[in-house]
């Protein structure tokens, strides 16, 4: 099925989608022309400015967003996300927003290039960090009671203290992870950092929960395989031009 890459009015979207489209010689279109196309693989970056609705209402798509590890730096300014460069990694997900659930390439080479050291299991963990999704994600996924439901679920499994963390928290993620027993999120990319820091991560989103099921929260396991899979599913804009990226895209078809 033909891939058509769509751009919005946002410069970050325009930059990232241009690299995708032009490195792969794909058709490149303004999102306002989406209705002209049928039976295509819809490709774009992010869920704002009209892309989210299309992604949710189409069966075949490639979703691009910030990578799991070593992604580009960004600042949050009210509801706007400002990208401070495009040199980091971007994830490419087929028919999902967060993870290529059935992707099998767990080769370590790309992960090793990231220079992320893997710490041993943190045996001094005291509390469970519950990472709340952003307001955008809550609305997008329609998970308005996520925090309450997940707290209740965790309480049914363990008596450990739960600390809720989100992007407005005063304590940084790095600090809070130091004494974390486990990291629970819907689909947060911070979970990948947690695993590298020696904190087992658990997910509620369908694309990721097989890699860390909340029911196993007391069965502490660092799923390094998830990191290797993630490293093979994220790419820099420069890498878009390479053969390895083409092979990756083909493997998702």
């Amino acid at each position, binding site marked *: 099925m033909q891939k058509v890459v769509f751009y919005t009015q946002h410069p970050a979207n325009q930059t990232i989608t241009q690299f995708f489209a032009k490195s792969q010689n794909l058709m490149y279109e303004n999102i306002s022309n989406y209705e002209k196309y049928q039976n295509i693989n819809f490709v774009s970056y992010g869920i704002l400015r009209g892309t989210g609705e299309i992604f949710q209402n189409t069966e075949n798509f490639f979703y691009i967003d910030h990578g799991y590890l070593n992604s580009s730096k960004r600042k949050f300014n009210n509801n706007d996300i400002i990208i401070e*460069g495009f040199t980091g990694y971007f994830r490419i997900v087929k028919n999902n927003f967060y993870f290529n659930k059935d992707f099998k390439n767990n080769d370590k080479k790309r992960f090793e290039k990231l220079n992320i050291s893997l710490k041993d299991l943190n045996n001094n963990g005291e509390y469970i960090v519950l990472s709340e999704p952003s307001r955008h994600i809550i609305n997008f996924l329609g998970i308005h009671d996520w925090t309450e439901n997940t707290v209740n679920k965790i309480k049914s499994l363990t008596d450990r203290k739960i600390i809720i963390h989100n992007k407005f928290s005063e304590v940084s993620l790095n600090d809070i992870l130091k004494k974390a027993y486990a990291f629970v999120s819907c689909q947060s990319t911070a979970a990948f950092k947690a695993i590298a820091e020696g904190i087992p991560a658990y997910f509620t989103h369908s694309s990721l929960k097989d890699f860390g099921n909340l029911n196993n929260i007391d069965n502490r396991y660092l799923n390094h395989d998830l990191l290797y899979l993630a490293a093979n599913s994220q790419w820099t804009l420069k890498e878009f031009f*390479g053969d390895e990226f083409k092979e990756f895209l083909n493997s998702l078809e």
Partner: protein
Amino acid sequence: MKIAFVSTINLKLYNEYGKRFIFEFAEYASSEVKLFIIFEGEIPEELLNLSDNIIVMPLVNEKFASFFQKFGKLQEARGMRFNYFYENDKRMVKLDYDYKFNAVKFSYKPFSILQSLDYTPDDLDYLIWTDADLRCKKKFEANDLVEFMPENEYIMSYLGRKNAYSECGFLGFNLKNERFIRYIERVIEIYTSGEFFTLDEWHDSYIWDHVRMEFEKNYQYKFKNLATGDAFEKEHVYINTNLDNFFDHLKGPQRKIDGHSTEDDYSKMVI
């Protein structure tokens, strides 16, 4: 052989002459020759979809941001000269503009080159800087440009001029020579550290030359001067080389208005 071009433009100059260049590039460059445009300001939509081999992106570079934060608002770094004198025993100051001291205006070029290196394909052999006041005269492909490229031990090709700073509307970088990045990083260091204030002129052509001579002398780096023979003594050196077969460089305001260089440009010597 794989070649890409990089250039930078803002919206005002895009409308004056950059658009003409980019549209001509889309028409005349073969599809394997890419052009990366580092655009200041909102990118015109007509550029996004113009051609598969043209990628337009904003200037987002940490080193540029650091340089601009330090020096961007400093009038001295923007070419203003504070000339003090006495009149009726009173100390007066006269402000004059001199482009040779406008470090900020001409910094976009080196920082755009630096930025582009983070995004160009890994298998690229050469990266060409071009000013955006260029005209494309006929169709060209990568192999047509081989003679202008710095092969093997050469770091960069450039348009040197006798008794004048080089014409840096064209620079060709040898990406397969791993030492080229040290040259670019040194140029950038002169901007970010403020070292440019210690030089006799602060515009990029002077700085490219300054670092080139420093590297030739101290590290025996090799640079390829494309201006050989008579061309070296010509004021409009660009069109007096074989680059003239493919391009016209609209150096200065009048040529931009006219849309072409003049017959005199083929004979006028550097003064």
